[in-house]
């Protein structure tokens, strides 16, 4: 059952869809920063949330025509305080090249959120000033919120039994 309404609507050249009545815009990685700059001019001065999703085991999701599904998706929830509106931005990020431009220059508040996404999903943000792990220890291997990262994969160290 799908509730993604297919629309011909577009916002600054990026297709728009509606999920449960919430407006979602799907720019490509090339359009991403230019679109965000235009959105800021339109009043979306706050980036409430930046996160990502790993669609490894759920590839067939609904996307508007012209948007190719990739493994990762970076999701921004923007907020316009003056217009009292929310807008969601979903960008497809391929597995082979998991990088995307950083939003740090647009909203400095995304710094920690981008570090969290990098830590949890392994998506790199170009132009981020300090892209290090934020929640996991520095020497952690892997990115825990990826779907191919099993739960409880911490190696348990047993002492060798006396033979």
């Amino acid at each position, binding site marked *: 059952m799908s509730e993604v309404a297919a629309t011909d609507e577009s916002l600054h050249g990026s297709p728009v869809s509606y999920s449960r009545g919430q407006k979602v815009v799907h720019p490509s990685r090339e359009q991403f920063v230019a679109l965000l700059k235009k959105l800021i001019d339109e009043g979306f001065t706050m980036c409430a*949330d930046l996160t990502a999703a790993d669609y490894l085991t759920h590839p067939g999701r609904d996307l508007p025509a012209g948007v190719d599904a990739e493994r990762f998706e970076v999701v921004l*929830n923007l907020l316009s305080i003056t217009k*009292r509106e929310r807008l969601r931005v979903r960008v497809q990020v391929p597995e082979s090249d998991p990088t995307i431009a950083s939003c740090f220059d647009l*909203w400095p508040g995304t710094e920690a959120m981008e570090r969290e996404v990098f830590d949890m999903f392994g998506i790199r943000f170009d132009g981020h000033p300090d892209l290090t792990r934020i929640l996991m220890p*520095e020497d952690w291997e892997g990115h825990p919120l990826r779907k191919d990262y099993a739960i409880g994969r911490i190696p348990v160290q047993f002492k060798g039994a006396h033979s």
Partner: protein
Amino acid sequence: MTTVENVRQTSEGGQEMKPRSELGAKELMREVGAVLRMSEAEAAALGQLPADAEDQTMIINMGPQHPSTHGVLRLMLELQGETVLRCKPIIGYLHTGMEKTGEDLTFLQGGTNVTRMDYLSPLNNELVFSMATEKLLGIDGDIPERAVWMRMLLSEMNRMSSHLLFLATNGMDLGAVSMMLYGWREREEVLRFFQKVTGLRMNHNFIRPGGLAADLPPGWRDDVLSILEMLPPRLEEYDVLMTNQPIWRERLQGVGVITAEEALALGTSGPILRSTGVPFDLRRDMPYMHYDELDFDVIVGSYGDAFDRYAIRLNEVRESIKIVYQILDRMPSGDYRIQNKKVTPPPRGRIDESMEALIHHFKIFTEGFRVPEGEVYVGIESPRGEIGCYIVSDGGPKPYCIHMRAPSFVNIQALPHMMRGGLVADAVAVISSVDPVLGDVDR
């Protein structure tokens, strides 16, 4: 398995703040710019600061085991004498992977998980999770009136208990120990009400997708009224004890100042944003449930300092009292959860007599109810700011992906900005005024 070589290979770089001597000018500027968010020119000027050898700077760790860091927050401070030059919050000590755990729990079990994130306002966590799930299910408009008003009652009572604890810890951090005892005492009264309603003082798992776990117990109205009557004189007492007291004002006024532009750029919300004079409260500006039908004020500060944040929270307790009186007047009778067989388990009595009820009960509690494919973001006003829940469903009984927009996680980023140029002694006041909950920061 984790040999030293492996560590080197996988390390993405240090999280800690490095001493100036180990940093090149470019790196220092990058680090300072990242932490303090200033322009390149400003950062470069700051990089040249300790030129002469006598004015050496020192890096100290505050936390993770410091009593005033509200948990396991660790701050690295670069000090020149008593002045804070740089500050970097280092988090993750309480990270337990709750978002990963949430992918393995059904939507009905999810409440037990999210309620443990912001453990001082658990009902707000459950509320936002339930609202997101209901929106995905498409039943967000069908929740019975009584359930909606009960949710508002619990949410506001939770705001009171959370703010009372803030007043207590803020007092404790600044040496007002009597305030600490008073705050805990009043909060305990609210928690006693929660215990009577939900069975637990914290981590209630009471607000669930589709409604609530149970109806309000007999005598709840008297309990609420006794809290509402008890609080106002006590709040007056706090005014005498702290608000009007010169020592208290000296410690807080002009400390940890942040401007409206900075607060907006950093994405902060709740009392921190409102302390800068931005009148933004999701309850009023993007109303959910029935907040648009209620009469209450949004408390706004003007200086963006620690005192404003204290005063806002104190007065928000008063606003919550006002709101709860209105909720008491308007509390309707009716169902406390939606009568939708796919979401709500059948009543216990039906299970003995109806095969279908038994099957439904079994299916809901083992497999869980299926939620249609889609993704949704819902944000509400928690005591600490905007708490948001982003859920992706693949049509199964468990969320495919769940992310909580934690207000403390975002607000804590404002710390370096607030502390820059201040004194070490004020650092405690600044941390306290942000009111972070580390369970919410690290999840």
